[in-house]
């Protein structure tokens, strides 16, 4: 069941500028002079003070910075969960910074896939059902929904656990369900907000290996993290401080999560989900 795939470069050292046929080479994200100001009573809080950035198709960007640096605000804006106070944001060629709530919901549904730190799966729904959900809101037919949900779960290696509830899955497995859910509407952009924040280092490598593999298929990923280790798996590192872009640099020699995982995996092939079960319960989605 090998998927026929085309990769522009060899694994591991993917060029940051893969041409994405769907977007004709135009940047996935264009952000110009983005500002966001909150009001705490009478005091303005400048969360973002003019950020300009471009992300090309096929890039794997790590957004870093200490807390309060504005990276969360940036993620919310990039993820169309919020609107900027000023500035422009083009996502896949669409000006989304001034869209209505309804249009923003459609953009979140079709152009963006979210992966969160706390997995954010629906606790009452099976893995399959969770993955189906974006397609439910997209209005896809039932047959197509089920077919794609199965495909997506097989893709992340959970083909045998489709009917499990999130509470019956380990943290890594839950995050893989969340990744499958993020992929299922074939978004232009995958946004991962601290996807390894709740995972041990082993599982983190597993999740990063999946993200890296997806990126090598041409998927554009923006990942927020505060762990420098994790950023080393990406191809570009963007650092925020005090609401401004501090550094924007390519990762010269990205680590290969797939190779590392391949080296780790045989050590204990029966890595039972029980090992991380207790931890999991704490993070089981709502």
């Amino acid at each position: 069941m090998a998927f026929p795939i085309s990769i522009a470069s060899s694994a591991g050292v993917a060029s940051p500028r893969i041409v994405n046929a769907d977007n004709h080479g135009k940047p996935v994200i264009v952000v110009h002079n983005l500002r966001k100001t909150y009001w705490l009573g009478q005091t303005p809080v400048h969360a973002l003070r003019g950020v300009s950035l471009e992300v090309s198709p096929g890039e794997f960007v790590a957004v870093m910075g200490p807390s309060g640096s504005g990276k969360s605000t940036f993620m919310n804006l990039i993820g169309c969960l919020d609107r900027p106070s000023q500035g422009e944001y083009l996502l896949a060629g669409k000006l989304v910074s001034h869209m209505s709530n309804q249009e923003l919901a459609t953009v979140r549904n079709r152009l963006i896939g979210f992966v969160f730190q706390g997995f954010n799966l629906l606790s009452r729904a099976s893995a399959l059902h969770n993955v189906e959900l974006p397609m439910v809101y997209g209005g896809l037919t039932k047959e197509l929904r089920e077919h794609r949900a199965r495909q997506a779960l097989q893709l992340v290696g959970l083909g045998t656990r489709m009917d499990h509830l999130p509470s019956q899955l380990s943290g890594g497995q839950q995050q893989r369900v969340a990744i499958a859910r993020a992929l299922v509407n074939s978004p232009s952009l995958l946004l991962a907000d601290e996807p390894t924040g709740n995972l041990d280092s082993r599982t983190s490598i597993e999740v990063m290996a999946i993200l890296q593999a997806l990126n090598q298929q041409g998927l554009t990923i923006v990942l927020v993290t505060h762990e420098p280790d994790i950023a080393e798996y990406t191809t570009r590192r963007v650092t925020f401080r005090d609401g401004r872009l501090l550094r924007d640099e390519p990762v010269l020699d990205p680590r290969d999560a797939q190779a590392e995982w391949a080296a780790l995996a045989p050590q204990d092939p029966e890595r039972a989900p029980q090992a991380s079960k207790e931890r999991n319960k704490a993070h089981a989605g709502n």
Partner: protein
Amino acid sequence: MQATNLMEDVSAGVARPAQRPSRKKRGMLPQLSPRDFDRVGKLGSNISIALEGIWANRLRSMLTTLGIFIGVAAVVAALILTQGVSANITNSITSLGTNVITIAPGAATTRGAIAPAGTTQTLTAADATAVSKLADVTTVSPIISVNQQVIFSNQNWNTRIQGVSPSFQTIQNWTIAEGAWFSAGDEQSARSVAVIGQTVKQKLFDPLGVDPVGQTIRINSQLYRVVGVLQSKGSGGFGGNQDDVIFVPFATAQDRLKNSTYIDQIVVQLDDASNTNAVQQAITTLLEQRHRILKGTPDDFNLISSQQLLQTANQFTSILTILLVGVAAISLTVGGIGIMNIMIVSVTERTREIGIRVSIGAQRQDIRNQFLIEALILSLLGGLIGMLIGLLIGYGITSLTGLPFVITLTSLIMPFAISASIGVIFGLYPAIRAARLDPIEALRSL
């Protein structure tokens, strides 16, 4: 197994150079085209999501439903009860004849004090004859009413004896169970014959197991031959037991039971109920002339038509309906507030779920519909259970009290209309609240 397919596939893909172009590029899931979206409505999904929500909180949902179903059950039971009472009253009025006017002696005025109606003696048999000659009047029967002890063998029973003309049978729709009604000949010759009601038969003859027809009973020490037994009419709406009666020819009653020229009532049957007002007017004019009543002084007789009785009875039952349904409506409102309360709690509790749904692309209206449908299902469920229980209660009460069990379309449709509107009215606010949640805040909540 833990080594994911994805990674295996990637390495496999690396071994082979790129051969197939882009359709499957992104994440290796086949690319969706815009045509794949918006193919199906989201209502079905919203309904199943709402059902899951209800099922996940079974106990709470059931308790919420309780408020509605008690209210709906009360409404349905109240409707059945009042409709039963109404049907019962209507039945007993129509059993007295629908196109009938009853003339009774009026209130007497003695130096300005008005005595109760019917206490005076003003009507005579001659009045009855005069009325029978009016247009649109088919038959007329004078009535003499006395209460007497009736004796058969060693049984005795106090009952109402009415002296009426032979046509009275058709005026009041009496059917004969055994024997026959007395004849015009019996009337003319003032024969001592009697037609007895079912109750009288039960009291006097049944204990002895004797067939009443042909037997002789004693009324006020006079002998009467029983010629017929009446079919039962059941209990009347106001007049108590209609079957506790003995009918004798009018002439006989006037001569032997009540030695007087005055009579107690005149019943007038019309050719058609629509002439009621005209005939009432004609009777009034005629009797005012015959009784020499001056203009401006009160009449010494009263006219009661069955139409008026029906109207009055209908007014009475509709007031009763409004009263009972009003009380039930209060409990429905309380139930609705219960739904609202629970929905607000539910929205608060599921804030994070709402955040997740919004982040993956649920529209505000999807969230609103999810909660609205949940409220609607809860209240409709309450309506359904309430209707069944209400029907049961109604059936129980009506069969206990001997009222007819009447189900109209209204009493079946109304519970659903009420509970659906309660679901919408009281579910809307929490649903809108859910839809207005800020996704960022919602995702942050626990």
